Structure formats: C-alpha cells, structure tokens
C-alpha cells in the first residue's frame, strides 16, 4: 500500500463554487488506528468545508496535544495548522483571532486536552465568546498514552483492562451551556448525516461554537461495558432534532411537517432548520437545553444534535469594539503615533 496520497486529480471530479474538489480539502494520510472515530470526524470536516466552499487559506486549524490534536494534519492541507501545547489550543486561537478577525478558526481538541489539562482555557474561551469552532473528539480515554481513563469517562464505565471508573464524568456540553456558550451541539463520529450540517452551522455561527463529538477509541475504549464504544453509543443515542444547514439564499429543500420544524436564522443569511423530534423544544432556550441534557443523562442516553444556539451572539471583537480591518494588516502609518505625539507625551512628564 502507499503512505502518500496522490496529488493528481481526476479531471471530472466535481468542484464546489470556488473551484475546489473535495480532495483539495483533504490532508495527509491518517496515522491513527484503523476505525478510529476521529478519522470520521476529519472526513466530516472535509465534507463540510467542501460543501460550504470555504477558501482553504481563510481557515486556520489549531489543536493541542493527543490523538485528536493530531487530526489537523489529516484534513485541509491548504490551510495553516498549529499543533500547540497540551490543553492550550484555546489561548493560541484567542491570540490568532485577535490578530485577524477575518479567518475561520477551527480548533480541535480531545477530552484529555479539554476536560483535564486544558479545562481552564476551555472555560475562558467560552466566557469571551471567541469566534471559533471548538470540536472535542471525545473518546473517554487517553489514547496516545495507552488508554487511561479521562475526565469524561462515565461513572461506572468499564475500561479495556476491566476496571470500573469510580469518578464522576465531566459533561462538556452541559458545562458549555452553564458557562454561557452561544452554540452547543453534541454529535457522534458515526453519524455523518448529523455531524456535517452541525459543523457547517458551527462555522457560520459568530461566536464560540462548541461541538462535543463522541468518537470511540477502537483500540482502548471500544470494549463491552464502555459507555463510549460504538455499540453502546448507537444503542443509547437520542437526537434533539434532525438538522439541516441552509446556506444564504439557497432554496429550502427539506420539507417538514407543520409544527415539527424550527428555523434559526444566522447572521450571514444562512439558517438552520431543525426537524423536531421532541415537542416543546426550543433551540434558543438555554434552560430547556440544560433540562433536556440532564433528563437524557438520567435515562442513560446520549443526547445529540444542536442543543443550543444564541442567534444574537456577539463575539469577542464586537465586545471589545475592535476596528474592522484585521489588526495584523496594519502598519506604521496606522499604528505609530509619531514624534509629535511623543513630544507632548514627554512634556506631560516634566
């Protein structure tokens, strides 16, 4: 077999509206284990960016450390990537976003990288409503160091070695809701039909868009008794709604029965359509999201779908009242106050 992807493309491959084929959004060949949930998420990211016709150089992909944080190598090869240090992707992304508000920031992290070592930075990125997509590839274990339990491992979940986790799990989606995240979704790496539109909606959202994606670790956490295995998740999944992302000015092609659909308009003219599985559920009601999440947890179910969105979200640059021109594009003439101003500064200190 080959470890290098071919660079030539079939001439008839379909292209998106800016002339890129789907293959142009792919990355290097994955070095993760065969069947790793993370690879499916990477494929969903590729699919979402291709369908949305994201300009590859207008997206920056950032990550921390761990199996999940390796994945930016495996998608969007034409985008700049930054594999930073363990648990610190949010701060690097914050700085990058302050420097240039015009790019899309896609942060990828894992449950160790976010729920343990990086908890502080995760929490504060939410507080600031940083305009980014934050994907946690959540497998409940530390894959790269051979399968130790992570802080998202469910209470009572059994590890491959047969030991039972006796600690409470951190529910990242629930936490994000509590902390005021303006977009919170949960999905499953094995459900591309749900994940792709969720990623698209997250990219469109002007603020912190959090996606907790359950992504089984085939090597260390796919055993009987694990609550993050493919089988367990498939058996216990419950969706809030079928989700459809509708780009700006596009025809709505999905038909919903009367009273069963909800529409959320996004700032760029796009919208999210939700086919409600549960009556009385409103995606822009934080309280109802918290309640639904808690109820599912009590029942032992994995609630997926878009849990909450704030269509009025104001991101960090808006909150700080920064100029529209990206700060990294300014030079001496815009930034240096010059000698005359310095003369009066000097005088004020005499």
């Amino acid at each position, binding site marked *: 077999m080959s470890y290098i992807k071919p660079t030539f493309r079939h001439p008839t491959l379909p292209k998106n509206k800016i002339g890129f084929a789907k293959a142009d959004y792919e990355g290097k060949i994955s070095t993760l284990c065969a069947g790793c949930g993370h690879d499916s998420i990477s494929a969903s990211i590729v699919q979402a960016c291709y369908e949305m016709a994201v300009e590859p150089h207008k997206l920056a992909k950032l990550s921390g450390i761990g199996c999940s944080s390796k994945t930016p190598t495996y998608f969007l090869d034409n985008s700049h990537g930054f594999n930073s240090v363990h648990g610190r992707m949010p701060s690097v992304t914050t700085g990058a976003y302050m*420097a240039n508000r015009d*790019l899309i920031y896609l942060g990828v992290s894992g449950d160790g990288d976010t729920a343990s070592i990086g908890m502080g930075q995760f929490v504060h990125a939410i507080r600031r409503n940083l305009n980014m997509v934050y994907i946690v590839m959540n497998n409940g274990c530390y894959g790269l160091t051979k399968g130790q339990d992570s802080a998202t491992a469910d209470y009572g979940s059994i590890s491959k070695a047969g030991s039972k986790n006796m600690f409470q799990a951190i529910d990242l989606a629930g936490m994000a809701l509590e902390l005021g995240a303006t977009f919170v979704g949960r999905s499953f790496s094995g459900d591309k039909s749900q994940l792709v539109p969720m990623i698209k909606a997250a990219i469109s959202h002007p603020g912190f868009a959090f996606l907790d994606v359950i992504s089984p670790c085939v090597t260390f956490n796919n055993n009987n008794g694990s609550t993050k295995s493919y089988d367990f998740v498939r058996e216990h999944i419950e969706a809030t709604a079928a989700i459809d992302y509708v780009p700006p000015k596009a025809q709505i092609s999905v038909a919903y029965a009367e009273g069963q659909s909800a529409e959320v308009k996004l700032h760029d003219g796009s919208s999210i359509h939700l086919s409600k599985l549960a009556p009385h559920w409103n995606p822009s009601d934080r309280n109802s999201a918290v309640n639904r999440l808690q109820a599912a947890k009590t029942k032992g179910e994995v609630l997926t779908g878009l849990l909450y969105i704030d269509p009025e979200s104001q991101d960090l640059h808006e909150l700080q009242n920064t100029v529209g021109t990206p700060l990294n594009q*300014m030079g001496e003439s815009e930034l240096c106050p010059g000698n005359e101003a310095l003369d009066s500064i*000097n005088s004020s200190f005499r």
Partner: protein
Amino acid sequence: MLSINAVNDFVVRFANVNGSGSASANNMFAKAIFRMGIPVSPKNIFPSNIQGLPTWYEVRINEKGYLGRRDGVDMMISVNPQSIVKDIAAVKTGGYFVYDNTRKLHNEIIRDDINFIGIPMMRMCMEHYKDPRKQQLFKNMVYVGALTALIDMDEAVLKNIIAEQFAKKPKLIPPNELAIKLGADYARANYECPTGLKLETRDAVGDHIMIEGNEATALGAIYAGATVMAWYPITPSTSVAKAFETNCKKLRVDPETGKKKYAFVQAEDELAAIGMVIGATWNGARAFTATSGPGISLMSEFIGLAYFAEIPAVLINVQRGGPSTGMPTRTQQPDIISTAYASHGDTKHVLLFPSTPAECFEMTATAFDLADRLQTPVFVMSDLDLGMNNHMSPPLKWDDSRVYDRGKVLTAEDLENMEEFGRYLDVDDDGVCYRTVPGTHPTKGSFFTRGTSRDEYARYTEDGQVYVRVVDRILKKWETAKSLVPKPQVQWSESETKFGILFFGTTNYSALEAMELLEEEGIQVNAMRVLAFPFTTEVEDFIDKHEYVFVIEQNRDAQFRSLLINELDAHPKKLIRVLNYDGMPITADNIKNQIVQKNPLAPQLASKPTAS
C-alpha cells in the same frame, strides 16, 4: 549636637501608612524638586498590601545626578506610628526627624543625636477641615508644606503643580494651598528655617522627564506597533498593562468610528497570556505580554514552543524578589538564568537590559524588531525599581522615518514567484527562515506549525539527523542575533587598570557612582554595562583585557556571572561576585565596600596604574 548640613545632596524618607493618600503628596514633593532643576530619584518601598501597612517613600536629591539609592536618611518625615521606632533609628546622626506632634513622643524613643521637628499635622487638619477623610488626606499636604520651609523648597513651583493636578477639580486647589500654608507657617514660627538641609534652584535636569519605566515600556510597545497585549495581573508588571491600555485609548482609537486599533486581553493565567501572544504573532500581528518571575516560570512551556517552532514573541519581565512568591514588592535581578534558558530542552533566548525609562521605551521597540527578525521570543529584563518608580530619564525618542522590521514574511506575490516553499529552509544561510502568515495565498505557503521535531518543510520527523540539522540551524540564529542586539557601553578609566566592573540594568546608577567612590579609595576600574544577551565579542574582549572583573548584580547566586562563564568560557576565578539581594536597589557604597573588601590585589597593587 552637630547637625547635617547639605545643599542639594541628601535623602528624605517619608514613613506613611499604605492607602492613606500619601502617594500623591509625596509625588508632588519629588516633582517640585525636579522642576527646581535638581536631579532627584524617588523610590516607593511598599508592602504587598492595599491598606494599613507601613510604606515608605524615599527621595534622594543629588545635584551631581547620581540617581541610585543611597543608604542613610538625612530627614525622616514620620506620619506612621506603627513604624516610628524603626524610623527614628534610621536617621543618620545629625539628621532630622519631622513628626506629627499632635501626640507627644514617648521619651524612651527620643534620640539625642538627631533633630526632632514636631509639626501638629493632625491637630491643624482637625481645626481647618471638617470631613474626616479630608483631615486625613490634607495631613499629607501639611508635611509637604512644612518642607517648603524646612528645606527651602520653592513654594511657587509646588503651587503650580497643585494647580495642574487639580485643573479639572479647581475646588480642591484652595484647601490644598491652605494645607501647604499651615505646614510652612508652623515650621517657620517654631523652627529655624531652613534647617541644615537646603534646596537651591539649579539648571541640572535639562530636557529630562520623570516617568516610571513601566509607562515607558508600554509606550515603546505602542510605538513599535504592538496590536495585541495579553497579560495576567502580577506585581510589579501590572502597570505595563495599565499604561498600555490607558495610552492606547488616547493614541490608538479611530477618531471617526471610536473603534480600537488594538486588542487588550486580560488572560486567565500566565499560560494563557503567552499562548495568546504566540497565537497573535503566528498570525502576523505584533503582540506582547508583561509579567514577572513567577509568570516566566508558568510561561516556560510555551516559551519553548515559540523558540522551537520559531514564532516571534515579546515578553517584558519586570523582575521582583524571588524565589517562589518571594518578595513581590521588592526589587531584584533574580531571573537571569531562568529567563535566559527558559523551558525544557536546549533553549536560549535573547534578553535586553534597560536601565532607564528611555531605554525601556527604546528596547521594547527594538525587542519587537528583533523578535520578528529572529523569529524567536525576546525578553525585556526590567525590574521593580525601574518599572514602578519615577525616574529622571532622557526624553523618549522616536524617529518618524523608522520602519518596523517585520523580518522574513512572504507575501502572496512572493509565493507566486517562488519555486518551492519550505518553512524551515535556511535560504539566506543566516539561520533565519521565511515564514508565511495564514490567509496569504489560496494554495501556496500553508504549513503546519508544531512543537514536535520536524524537517525543513515542517513535516513531523523522528529522524535524528534531520533533528540535529534543525536544532543546529536554530543555533545559527543565535550567532545572527549577536550581530543585531545592542552593544555594551564601556567607560574607560583615565589610567591603566587591571580591574573591570561589569553590570547591567538598574545597577547602572550605583555602579557609575561607585566608580567615583573607588577612585577616592585609589582604585581605578574600567566599566562595562551589558545591554543584551547573547553576549557580543566586546564582552569577551573586556573580560580578556582585565585581570579581574567584578560582576555586579542584584541576586544571591551571581546568575549573570554564571551566564558569562557558561557562554564565554570565562575563567571563574577572574569574575568576582559583587552582590546585593535584600530587595532594595543596590547602593554605590555597597558596591565600593565589596570591591574594596574583595580586591584580590589589595593592598599594594590596587591603586597603581599598570603597564599592560
């Protein structure tokens, strides 16, 4: 009793209670002397506390322009009963102790070798001001008023300062002036004025300004085009952040839209602060943080990332007493080694050592150019003494034709015309490679930034040969850095000597004064002030030229000396430690005494000019 007599050469110390509003009055005192044209250096000696604990403000007045701290207090202004015993003991024989005699002093603390000058500060304030808070506040102005009489301070100059200070609250001018008058009148009516200590107007400050180093640092960052500041509060660096924000509000807001041309983020901790800086510089902005020793410890992992992945960053380290939480409100130079080699693995970093606010301004601006040019973290090594005290400094200077050196950053056009791009290819053979910023070109120039080992094309590798090639190339940048950093300043003795003194940063003030004191002892020395690390050849030559070099620094372990030995293979026996680490700025007397005591050639050779 002999009283101290001195004109324009003495030390006044104010003993106050923290949070009692004394700072403003004390600052006016120092400023008035400065405006009388007499060189002055005030220092805050303050506790890590907001209200209630003893705090001192020490002002050295020195016509010759020596601005370092001097031991011994000629006149104490005592307004704090908590510290009165210690304060009385601190006055030099023949000195003056000005105190609030609203309450009588206990007999047992009275010394008969100093002059006691009682001013009923509280009583007069209770008589003239109704509001208790005002009674408290104006007490501070009463002692400043008394000083106009006691040391002949120009009252008109003081009144001008009051008028400027309260230009926006003119109602406060008359009560302030009244306090001045109360103090001055009482002093004149009850004591011989002036005392033996006397100010005389001079023209010895030229175009100098009085400014805190941290304010100058912040202005340097603004002038250098820093657009992102991320920081976490820590004494003594917090005022850099505050000054950056305050000045940006004046200098960096679009007048039409009111929108900010800067981002100012108070991070959740120092780790996040440096992470934000690295994210911003990676993305093409100029960004910086300000911190102190504990912050450098916390930032170390990220510093290693920036070093290895070759991302520019500017860090201001306003040093304070360590280790651990140490003495957070006292000065030291204790982070030399921990900053020079911050982070795990083989790392070393460019350091700049300012000694005046003007240099804080200039070196901060230079730090941004160096960081961009070398694609590496650059540290400005200030300290609490420089950062948080007002210093008489040459004015801040900027050349309007100055162009930011953004280093090797490729544009879309560059990429279009290139045959191949490799992020870590040493195209120019100076160790510095070309970088691209996200968003530059749709299909060219993207690469993966990582803290893992990688090859010239930024691809992950565990190949030992490739790794060695990369880290050796990064070391080549270190040689390039030597040609870019500011060179040391040297002051040669009039006669040949076997001795050199070597120092950096705020030690400058006292080291230069010590040269004169040593001269009086018959010891000539050549002096070198190092401005930067890596050390340039001049430093090596200076050490080679002398039989002994006294390395003067403000830490216990002679860290700078270790750095010289480690980096230059200097012979340890040649480098003699001169140290001060009690948290107070080093004094000239201390330096002189240590050099006299440690002089290895004493007594016969020391003072004789040699032929070498």
